[in-house]
């Protein structure tokens, strides 16, 4: 078989050019989209987060129970964000445009939940500073409030292609959350885990989540265009 080397080289060059254009055109990782989105929506995000922080902080301080009110307050604010996201598009007739966009309503809400979960770390640190928690309370807080939220976030992220609106995101998120809580509760995980192990587990999940944000996206790009980079 005779192969035209020159034509082959030309094809390769054109393909690389096409690929370069695509790389320039689209974001290369979910972190990039996330940062752009959050930068744009910083004002609204901060408003929600600040209200959320105050609510969670006050409730936890008054009841002297971090895990329950952290989780309760967190989901209350999350629900409010989901309703806000949905109503905003409904009121301003943005539904049609958002349904077609890569970051549809469900995904923009998912991105907001990421910010919320980042703010939750701040809330957690602030609470730890103000409340004198014992070791058992700290472990419970990590395993019932912090860790499941990031695992739910990872699960929701993998379900991203199926998510179309904020309600779906909220359901996926909350179901995964309670499934994890059920597993932890069933095995009474806080009775045999040390504080050191809890902190390592918490940090590992956050690191895994960041890696996942990059990895999931690359896989999807490959699916879209039949290429990977």
């Amino acid at each position, binding site marked *: 078989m005779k192969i035209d080397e020159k034509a082959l080289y030309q094809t390769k060059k054109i393909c690389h050019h096409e690929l370069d254009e695509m790389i320039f055109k689209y974001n290369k990782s979910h972190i990039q989209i996330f940062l*752009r989105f959050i930068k*744009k929506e910083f004002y609204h995000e901060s408003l929600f987060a600040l209200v959320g922080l105050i609510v969670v902080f006050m409730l936890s301080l008054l009841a002297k129970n971090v895990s329950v009110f952290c989780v309760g307050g967190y989901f209350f604010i999350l629900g409010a964000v989901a309703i806000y996201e949905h109503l905003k598009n409904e009121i301003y007739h*943005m539904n049609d445009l958002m349904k077609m966009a890569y970051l549809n309503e469900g995904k923009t809400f998912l991105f907001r939940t990421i910010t919320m979960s980042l703010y939750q770390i701040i809330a957690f640190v602030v609470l730890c500073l103000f409340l004198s928690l014992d070791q058992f309370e700290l472990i419970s807080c990590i395993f019932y409030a912090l860790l499941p939220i990031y695992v739910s976030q990872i699960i929701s992220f993998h379900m991203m292609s199926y998510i179309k609106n904020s309600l779906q995101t909220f359901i996926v998120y909350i179901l995964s959350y309670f499934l994890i809580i059920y597993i932890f509760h069933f095995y009474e995980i806080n009775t045999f885990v040390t504080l050191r192990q809890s902190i390592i587990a918490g940090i590992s999940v956050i690191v895994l989540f960041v890696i996942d944000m990059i990895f999931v996206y690359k896989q999807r790009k490959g699916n879209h265009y039949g290429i990977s980079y």
Partner: protein
Amino acid sequence: MELVIKNASKTYKDVHAVKDVNVVLKPGIHALLGANGSGKTTLMKMICGILKGEGELYFDEVSAFDNYEAYALHIGYMPQHFGYYPQYTVKEFLEYMSIVKNLSEEYSHQRINELVNQLNLKDKLNTKMKALSGGMLKRVGIIQALLSEPEILILDEPTAGLDPKERIIFRNLIASLSENTIVLLSTHIVSDIESIADDILIMKEGEIIMQGAYEDLLQIIENKVWEVSLDKKSAHRLMKETRVVKSHYVDGSIYMRIVSDKKPHENAKTVAPDLDDLYLYYFAEEVAL
């Protein structure tokens, strides 16, 4: 590059909004012409994947149903009632749209500048969306649809509310895109189509009843368009019996342009048809309403 629509149907309760549409669209300007309620918007929303219906939809080999995310990347859409966040400035809104379309910061910055220059909106970049006139909003709508340089551009009534100057800008922009883009636009304004459309699709009661180039479609009503000048009494009688495209007073008599299969009056003479005549020929009932 082609967009294939196979057996597309959409039913609302008992009403067939879109009925078994089969069309293949290639790069160029395709105009969707039809009366209100003929199914134009429903068909466009189905092509965009906003409305689910029956049938198949492919862009090249990418199926809208099996791989919507990949399919939607190729589409730019401007809805008839263009929604926006009123508190955003034009720049903020376009940046927001570029983020949700997953475009990189560098690319979108470059693209927004290019498009605002092309559509004369550069001086309005820092104006709030709620302060824009209808025509300017339409231009912002077109820009957001073009942000990702889509291969398929769907424009629902893009010229409604535009003044003549804006309409010319729009026509020139669309014409410049037609070489590498499949443009599908719906309109009531036939003069917009005459000058730029490569292909016209006439839609009636959810069906594409006709498709072809401007000249080919006009051949259908060749020798069916008449002009006649009559006195007031005869003119009024003829108006009741035939489909009159236009009429006006000239030197005491009434000049009329009529679409009719038969010669409407012994003095009538055939004239070259245009798209208004064709529209009336097929949509006489809607025009009468």
